[in-house]
């Protein structure tokens, strides 16, 4: 269970101060599929970075089952991320000089897990183990980054606009893999998007606008990536 309480964050100071998060509170349960929905510039990425411990908030707390990560040292935060968290970004940030397999091992080695090949198979790239990122399409690269994140067995998967750079068909495919693996492995998903329709895939939708949460609602039924509009 993730409990976020009254998070604030600003960039700059004085007249140029930009209040990006203006007191955000919310909770996300274990194994939940949560989507953060909002227009560009509304503070979604900043919020995600604070919740995942990549960035420090100015005030407020982020508790994982009672542990407040805003009070952890950098070293403890690193350990926390190592044991709990996976990331997927809009840009895939794969290492260009390494094969698909080695990229995925970046995640797998952290958890000491040996099943990276199964995970690569699970995102449909079993025949691309020896390929380099530049030889893959955007969708395939994003699937590698999904495999890389999941190979470290995270309890929570953070995704910042994972389909932002993909066309509709490819985007659906990536979301479908993520949805299936979520159902199968039971990790928590916290995904940012500005696409209203993608929210239909979630249990919980948190709508943000200019640094505040304007609405939280739960879908009675989740749609699959192929059922939603685009």
């Amino acid at each position, binding site marked *: 269970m993730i409990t976020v309480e009254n998070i604030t964050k600003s960039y700059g100071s004085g007249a140029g101060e930009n209040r990006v998060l203006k007191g955000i509170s919310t909770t996300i349960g274990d194994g939940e599929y949560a989507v953060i929905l909002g227009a560009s510039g509304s503070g979604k*990425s900043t919020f995600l*970075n604070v919740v995942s411990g990549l960035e420090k908030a100015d005030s407020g707390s982020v508790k994982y089952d009672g542990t407040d990560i805003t009070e952890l040292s950098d070293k403890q935060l*690193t*350990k*926390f991320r190592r044991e709990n*968290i996976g990331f997927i970004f809009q840009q895939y*940030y794969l*290492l*260009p000089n390494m094969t698909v397999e080695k990229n995925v*091992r970046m995640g797998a080695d952290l958890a000491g897990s040996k099943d990276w090949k199964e995970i690569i198979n699970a995102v449909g790239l079993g025949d691309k183990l020896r390929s380099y990122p530049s030889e893959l399409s955007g969708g395939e690269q994003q699937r590698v980054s999904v495999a890389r994140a999941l190979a470290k067995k995270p309890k929570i998967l953070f995704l910042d606009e994972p389909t932002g750079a993909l066309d509709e068909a490819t985007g659906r495919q990536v979301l479908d893999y993520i949805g299936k693996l979520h159902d199968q492995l039971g990790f928590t998903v916290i995904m940012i998007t500005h696409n209203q329709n993608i929210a239909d895939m979630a249990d919980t939708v948190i709508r943000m606008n200019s640094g505040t949460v304007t609405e939280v609602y739960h879908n009675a039924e989740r749609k699959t990536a192929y059922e939603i509009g685009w």
Partner: protein
Amino acid sequence: MVTVKDTLKLFGISIVICCAAFVCTLFINYRIDLAAIAGTVQGDQAQKLYDAQLSTSTVVCAVAGGCLILTSVVMLLTYIRNFIDSRSKELGIMKALGWSDMGIAKHFGIFGMSVLAGAIIGISAAAAYMPKFYELQNKTDYFSVPREMHYGAFALLALIPTAVFAALAVLFAYRSLRKPVMKLLREDPGSKVRNGKNDEALCFTKELRKDTVRSKRSLMFFVWFSAFCFSCNTQMSFSMTNLASETMGYMILVIGLIIAYMMLILALSAVVRGNAKTAAMMRIFGYEDGEISRSILNGYRPVALFGFILGTGYQFGLLKIMVGVVFKDIDTTPEYDFDFKALCIALPVFIVSYELVMLFFGSRIKKLPVKSVMLDN
């Protein structure tokens, strides 16, 4: 586009050129004066010593000057390559808007200024040092070289390298820019390195260590060359103090140390910069600082050691030849043998200082912000 501030970042080249100009000015000036008294030397021993002096100054000029200039050329080209790589988007947009390759490339000529600055400082320093230098060179009883200042040569020494470097910068920039616009815009990392053998068993951090070294050959060369120069010049300076003069020893020592550290720092800065995203991504995933800096930097340790070993061999061979060939007929030349004492001092100093530099760059990697991975694009 290419500003004076960018040129200032080339102060490394200025320093190396400054050394080259210093050494070459002294020895060229001396050699001209030496050549002028060719007819006046009398006696067999005197003639032999004269010939030896003449070839020594040619060799010193060629070796020291050549090494230093080669070093600065490599530095310049690497700098331009990095400059273009890191701004490939801007340059791509300029090209898309209709700038010609040459139109962009000619701005790189301003990099010649860093050479001019270094040369002027080096030549001035040499001119100031000249009287003392002649005093030292004239210590022999056989003949004395009168000192004259050859200002024309000084001017050429400043202007020719400046012009050549400026032209080189423009040509190299032109060549690097001759890519399709889309390639520049996409910031294609381009060079993926495939070393046929894909070692499946290798874990990620080990693979990264190997890949960091392999993927940027020029940086590997820099680290190697840095260790080579350190080893070669420090050890040679010990022997030179006995064989030639203390001044010569110091000169070689200082040049060696300057090249070695400039190169090492230049290379490692580039390594850290080039791996900023990888480091940020690893940190995001939860790799510890130590693991990150080790997998990025440790691959260079064997490279440096190899450079040191080769440098040791090279200086021994070079001195053996010099003593055997150049000074062979002169009675006063001392014996030369491998200097173990020099090695015993140079090696520990090398290891300690190399590890300190690595430690420093390790801490730079630790300070890279996690967000650097998300901010650009």
